[in-house]
């Protein structure tokens, strides 16, 4: 039995900083000649775990064993990507590691042995041999910047194979591929498996797991849940492993009072830079005095949705976002208005952490100057400083922001405090629609609860709150309704009080084709 195993991870633990535990005591076997799916929600530690095999990170504790020569497992220490290659481990990252101005051949040759001159023709022949063996298509002389995403991915796999990889790790390989390209990838994966290679595919798409893999291992919140044979698994059994049992959170939730239509979104469609629909025909209504949760695997269109409403994202013709003024009851179209006009109407976007310091705050300025970013147009010639200063002080006191002074550069603050500043500033503008994304990511429990409290306060004031989150337990406890996005499509809106974690998990991972077509 032992002879059958290519890699063994034993009691691997990895933490970032003091609080974030990415992997806790994970033990996992990868067999020879199998395709193993590594399944888990966002932030469950899949990529981190595999990065430790690829030499990007080094585990805090635990052991890694690799069978390098077919003579059984040996304990190894993988300190760099080079070490990983020497052990026959190759990882294909989500962000390709290729040099754009180089040809395929040059990329493959990069960093290999020490001989001065190199024979491009020989390498091109070797590449062709690998391609023929597994069914890849690579043009050795094509420059990477002329390649499609799928071609780049193929090149990455060929590069790993050229370096003698026997264990291939693919990090969400299908996220960037069309269905046809995915089929092609799966074909070569099967060929590689036939050839005795071990393949680990990181994914959260259940249908792909069922289609391609032999076994499925699941991680949840950094911990190993278990491994099952794919033959014994079903969509619902896998969902249950992935999302786990419901955890009850003590978050206050009042019934929405006097809710009126605030935002009416119709047929909202956005196209990303690759020409793929990031949002596909989204229609929903957000009400004042309620929290509308938005759930979905990351990259399902959450960012585009919020940005389209805030006027930061171009939309396709026919999209409509109607805003109903709570005081006058008149409705107006937001599409076509500038971000500033929309903001002045009371639609606030506190797009919290994806890019905490990029989008919302200027890192080298203090709290008070950051408050001014919202009001710098006030004042004649000279900026008006007093108001922002008072506001900064108020936010600091109300939200208990830990900072030496309101003029300390915000980049010196901890993540949680930065988030409080950002959310505090948006709330201070007394919005009528408040949108937040991942407002509690990376925050400790207490700070998270402060933020939930703030959002609930806004809800009671009659604000329409849109909360994009990743922790299903929080979404279930905080929201009134939950909108589920899947691959840029609206896959259902459920009542947060009656739904189950499994239902949302399924909606997140499995597109309900038929119902979508009708509705």
């Amino acid at each position, binding site marked *: 039995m032992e002879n059958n195993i290519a890699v063994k991870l034993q009691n691997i633990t990895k933490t970032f900083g003091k609080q974030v535990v990415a992997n806790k005591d994970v033990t996992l076997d990868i067999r020879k000649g199998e395709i193993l799916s590594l399944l888990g929600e966002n932030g469950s530690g899949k990529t981190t775990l595999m990065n430790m095999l690829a030499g*990007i990170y080094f585990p805090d504790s635990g052991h890694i064993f690799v069978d390098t020569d077919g003579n059984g497992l040996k304990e190894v220490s993988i300190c760099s*990507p080079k070490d990983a290659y020497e052990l026959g481990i190759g990882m294909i990252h989500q962000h390709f590691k*290729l040099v754009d*101005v180089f040809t395929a051949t040059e990329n493959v040759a990069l*960093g290999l042995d020490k001989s001065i*001159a190199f024979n491009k023709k020989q390498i091109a022949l070797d590449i062709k041999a690998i391609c023929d063996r597994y069914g890849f298509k690579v043009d050795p002389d094509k420059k990477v910047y002329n390649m499609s995403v799928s071609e780049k991915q193929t090149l990455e796999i060929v590069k790993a194979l050229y370096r003698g990889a026997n264990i291939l790790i693919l990090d969400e390989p299908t996220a960037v591929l069309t269905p046809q390209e995915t089929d092609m990838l799966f074909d070569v994966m099967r060929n590689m498996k036939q050839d005795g290679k071990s393949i680990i595919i990181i994914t959260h798409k259940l249908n792909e797991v069922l289609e391609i893999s032999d076994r499925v291992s699941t991680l949840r919140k950094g911990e190993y849940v278990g491994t099952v044979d794919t033959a014994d698994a079903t969509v619902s059994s896998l969902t249950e492993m992935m999302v786990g049992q419901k955890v009850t959170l003590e978050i206050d939730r009042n019934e929405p009072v006097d809710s009126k239509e605030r935002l009416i979104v119709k047929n909202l469609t956005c196209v990303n830079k690759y020409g793929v629909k990031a949002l596909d025909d989204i229609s929903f209504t957000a009400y004042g005095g309620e929290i509308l949760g938005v759930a979905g695997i990351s990259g399902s269109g959450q960012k585009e949705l919020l940005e389209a409403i805030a006027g930061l994202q171009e939309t396709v013709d026919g999209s409509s976002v109607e805003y109903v003024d709570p005081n006058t009851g008149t409705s107006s179209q937001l599409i076509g208005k500038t971000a500033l006009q929309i903001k002045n109407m009371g639609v606030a976007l506190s797009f919290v952490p994806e890019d905490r310091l990029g989008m919302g705050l200027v890192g080298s300025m203090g709290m008070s100057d950051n408050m001014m970013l919202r009001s710098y147009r006030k004042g004649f010639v000279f900026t008006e400083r007093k108001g922002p200063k008072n506001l900064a002080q108020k936010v600091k006191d109300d939200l208990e922001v830990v900072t030496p002074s309101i003029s300390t550069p915000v980049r010196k603050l901890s993540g949680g405090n930065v988030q409080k500043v950002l959310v505090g500033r948006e709330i201070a503008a007394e919005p009528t629609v408040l949108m937040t994304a991942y407002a509690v990511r990376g925050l400790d429990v207490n700070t998270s609860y402060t933020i939930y409290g703030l959002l609930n306060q806004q809800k009671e004031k009659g604000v329409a709150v849109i909360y994009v989150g990743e922790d299903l337990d929080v979404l279930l406890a905080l929201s009134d309704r939950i909108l589920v996005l899947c691959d840029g499509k609206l896959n259902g809106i459920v009542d947060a009080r009656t739904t189950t974690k499994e239902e949302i998990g399924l909606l997140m991972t499995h597109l309900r084709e038929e119902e979508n077509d009708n509705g």
Partner: protein
Amino acid sequence: MGNMNTLLQLLQSSIAFGTIIMFGAVGEIITEKAGNLNLGIPGVMYLGAISSLVGVFFYEKNVAQPNPFVCAVIAIVCAFLAAALGGLLFSFLTITLRANQNVTGLTLTIFGSGVANFFGGLLNGFSGGVGQIRVETTSRVFMAKIPFLSDLGVVGKIFFSYGWLVYVAIIIAVLSQWFLNKTRTGLNLRAVGENPATADAAGINVTLYRYLATCIGTGIAGLGGLYYVMDYTKGTWANDGTMENLGWLAVALVIFAIWRPKNAIWGAYLFGLLFWAYLYIPGLTRKSLELFNMLPYVVTIIVLVFTSFRKKRENQPPNALGLAYFREER
């Protein structure tokens, strides 16, 4: 015949200055291809110039019969090492301490010119009074022309009437072109300048490559200073700021040559020609003369506009140029 001679003089001075620019540009191309933007080229040229001068001055002073070969070796080694030390300082500040490359480079230029002028003044003091020192044996070695070939009439004058460093510059440029494009080490070096994260993941030591590329690049640039003092000013120290001008032209030439050493060869001579053109255009006043001095820079700007307009990826600066690299941490 008078016109012929004027033209000949123009070509000869263009090639002399072109050589200095070429050393600087080829050194800077190697540096920039690894991702380091070193604006200290004029400074390291100064360092190379003064060090070679100081080195051979003491050798010639203390030895009764200076050996010409030893003179040449001392001059070259001093010039290369002093300039490379300047590069090492730049590397330490920008790669290890991650200081801003532009600021560090400018500082290196000021530093190099200050050091050179200080020691140049001291050195001239040795000759007593207000005179200049001269390292005669050494400069004679560097100014030695190729026998026979240099006597071949006009052809000999245009192609073979120079000191041998002129040909060394061309050889270094050709070798650099071959090195960058045909060798594995060159491929790795370019990868470091394009995408250090990828290079790192491929097992290339990014820090080592950047250190070496910068130090060797500045060393080559230092040879430009060597040529200036040993050949152009005939082994004396007289600073009128020309070397600094040539250093900046070298930095501009890197862009003009779109980061290719082979283009730097003819580009350098063209810049030399443009530099001296004003002397040979009749009817220039002091004012319009300054306009002509701008020519090399105007040409560089035109090339910049042209290359960014065409957007051909191969003609763009190395992608990570000017950026410090550190491994991603979460």
